[in-house]
């Protein structure tokens, strides 16, 4: 079995939890549907969003330079990082320059991708994640299992246990309001003591040099507005050309992510606060190379709403941790083969190709078609599992030969009727795990057709 399948099987081992995960994400998907249906021009907005992103990516060098020059005019310092190492060193330099160890961070999948927390910890700096879900998993030394709902894999009792240990909440207490209040108190102390606040970026506007960050909790702003120094970290693909483009994306993002009409806070950072400093770090880390792959470049249009995860029948029943890449789910499965170190060649196969991901995508990425293309490319490159390749090769030989095909059909029909169960369902028959082989017909279709083709004439 592939790595994804093994981890998915582990996730499914706890049936009650797997069912809860499945149902909960499906509720989010249904909320998204109601929101989408409430906007009559929804489909036209998706098309516009797709076109704006394509235009931005097709002229990315121009827009990035415009963005930088506007941001510098606004008083921000713009830094560029070619890869994760350079990004981490840039952040370390800023922290050292401001001689502090009190750093808070709001959600940024980019810093996860670059392994920033781990890197800084080795240098003796502990970054405090301030999104509630991220703080929970940081306490537990886990990775987020969903890009919008990072702690969706946990039950409240487990969170209560973690908070009891780390924050001194009452033992056995698991009421979400009680636990959230405890986190509010704990994190407020961190916010007020912070000297540097880091955030991710949802949109970077080339025309104005400003960055936009969307949160429900208000943690990005509590951090940025309390700390003298603010650092915004963005991948090169976060660019939108114009301020008015934000009108399209802010109508789509939260509706598609969680079924809300908009996030509670949509913050626009233009200039540093009086006496403060503002840094924007622009990161490539494989993105520009990805742009040059005609079949796959559209994946860079992604605005990280997580909608494809909530709708995916495989994600809902296997959990985000089964993917083994920083971005899980359908979008992660088309990013990972291009961008992850290991290549994650099993991920494009962790899909039914039902196409639901592409149908809900707010920027119309052809996700399921890319999954299909990746399967072919990875197989040609010999990167898929040996068992999969051997079976496919054998199938190719059989399907290409009339005689072998007839023989294999007859052998199969005989085998299912006569062989003992433990031989039919031996470990090599991965398909038979959790599935029953069908009862074979007495004769092949070919034979039946030969007898019946003149019937009715």
């Amino acid at each position, binding site marked *: 079995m592939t790595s994804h399948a093994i981890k998915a099987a582990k996730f499914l081992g706890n049936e009650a939890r797997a069912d809860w995960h499945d149902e*909960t994400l499906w*509720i989010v998907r249904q909320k998204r549907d109601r929101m989408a249906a409430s*906007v009559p*021009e929804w489909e*036209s907005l998706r098309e*516009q969003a797709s*076109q704006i992103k*394509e*235009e931005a*990516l*097709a*002229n*990315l*060098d121009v827009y*990035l330079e415009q963005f930088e020059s506007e941001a510098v005019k606004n008083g921000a310092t713009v830094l560029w990082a*070619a890869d994760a190492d350079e990004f981490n060193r840039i952040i370390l330099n800023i922290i050292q320059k401001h001689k502090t160890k009190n750093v808070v961070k709001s959600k940024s999948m980019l810093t996860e991708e670059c392994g920033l927390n781990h890197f800084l910890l080795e240098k003796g700096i502990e970054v405090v994640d*301030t999104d509630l879900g991220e703080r929970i998993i940081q306490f537990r030394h886990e990775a987020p299992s969903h890009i919008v709902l990072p*702690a969706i894999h946990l039950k*409240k009792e487990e*969170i209560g246990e973690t908070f009891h240990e780390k924050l001194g909440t009452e033992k056995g207490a698991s009421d*979400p309001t009680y*636990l*959230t209040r405890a986190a*509010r108190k704990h*994190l*407020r102390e961190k916010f007020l003591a912070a000297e540097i606040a880091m955030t991710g970026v949802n949109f970077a506007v080339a025309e*104005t040099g*400003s960055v936009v960050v969307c949160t*429900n*909790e*208000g*943690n990005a*702003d*509590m951090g940025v*507005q*309390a700390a003298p120094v603010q650092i915004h970290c963005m991948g*090169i693909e976060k660019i939108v*050309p114009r*301020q*008015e483009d934000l*009108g399209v994306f*802010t109508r789509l993002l939260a509706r598609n992510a*969680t079924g809300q*009409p*908009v996030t*509670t806070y*949509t*913050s*626009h950072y*233009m*200039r540093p*606060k*009086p*006496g403060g400093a503002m840094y924007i770090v622009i990161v*490539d880390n494989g993105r*520009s*190379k990805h742009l*040059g792959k005609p079949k796959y*470049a*559209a994946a860079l249009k992604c605005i990280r709403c997580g909608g494809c995860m909530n709708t995916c029948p495989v994600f809902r029943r296997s959990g985000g941790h089964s993917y083994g890449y920083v971005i899980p789910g359908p979008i992660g499965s088309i990013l990972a083969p291009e961008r992850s170190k290991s290549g994650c060649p099993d991920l494009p196969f962790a899909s039914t190709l039902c196409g639901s991901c592409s149908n809900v995508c707010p920027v119309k990425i052809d996700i399921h078609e890319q999954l299909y293309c990746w399967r072919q490319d990875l197989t040609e490159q010999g990167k898929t599992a040996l068992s999969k390749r051997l079976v496919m090769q054998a199938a190719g030989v059989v399907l290409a030969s009339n005689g072998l095909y007839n023989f294999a059909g007859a052998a199969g029909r005989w085998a299912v009727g006569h062989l003992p169960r433990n031989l039919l369902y031996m470990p090599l028959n991965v398909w038979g795990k959790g599935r029953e082989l069908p009862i074979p017909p007495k004769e092949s279709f070919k034979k039946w057709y030969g007898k019946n083709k003149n019937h009715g004439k």
Partner: protein
Amino acid sequence: MSKQSILESIRQNKPDFQRETGKPEQKPVPVSKSQTTALKSFISALEATGGEVVECSAAEADSLISEKFPGILDFTRPEIREKYGEETPLSEFDKIETALLNGAFGVAENGAVWIEDRDMPRRIIPFIAQHLVLKTEASQIVGTMQEAYRRINLSGTGYGVFIAGPSKTADIEQSLVYGAHGAVRLTVVIPKMPDFEA
């Protein structure tokens, strides 16, 4: 620094999306039908986010606010703005129970209110206050975010934010809890001028 090498790599790898620089064809932005309709949608959207609404006449707004929210810090008044300036330590802001700010305009489709630097002496106020009260004129409601961005001039401000309801989280088992980090409670006071269409 890697700026040039990144830009060079982008130039070599530019995708062929067949699009020129410049705006894609824009669909006309839907415009709200009437002030009354816009206000109605704004109120129902805001209440859906967990926000509270107080409608009143412009003349009674101030007295109503001080009566309803005793001890409110009114940041529309110059003397209060001065007291909470650049020199004031954060610990003072952390004590704020209820804060009143002007909200420039609201958005009918989602209940969001736009505030920017000129509305507050320090950017932390709308987030650190336990209860945030925003005052937005009934005639200042636009239909959609697309209309909203036509009213904003980002280049003319240092910081601006749309706020739609109180701070919230559902990170623990998807149970909705208000007051994650920002305001636990949000009220929008909507004064109506005598000429507001009824």
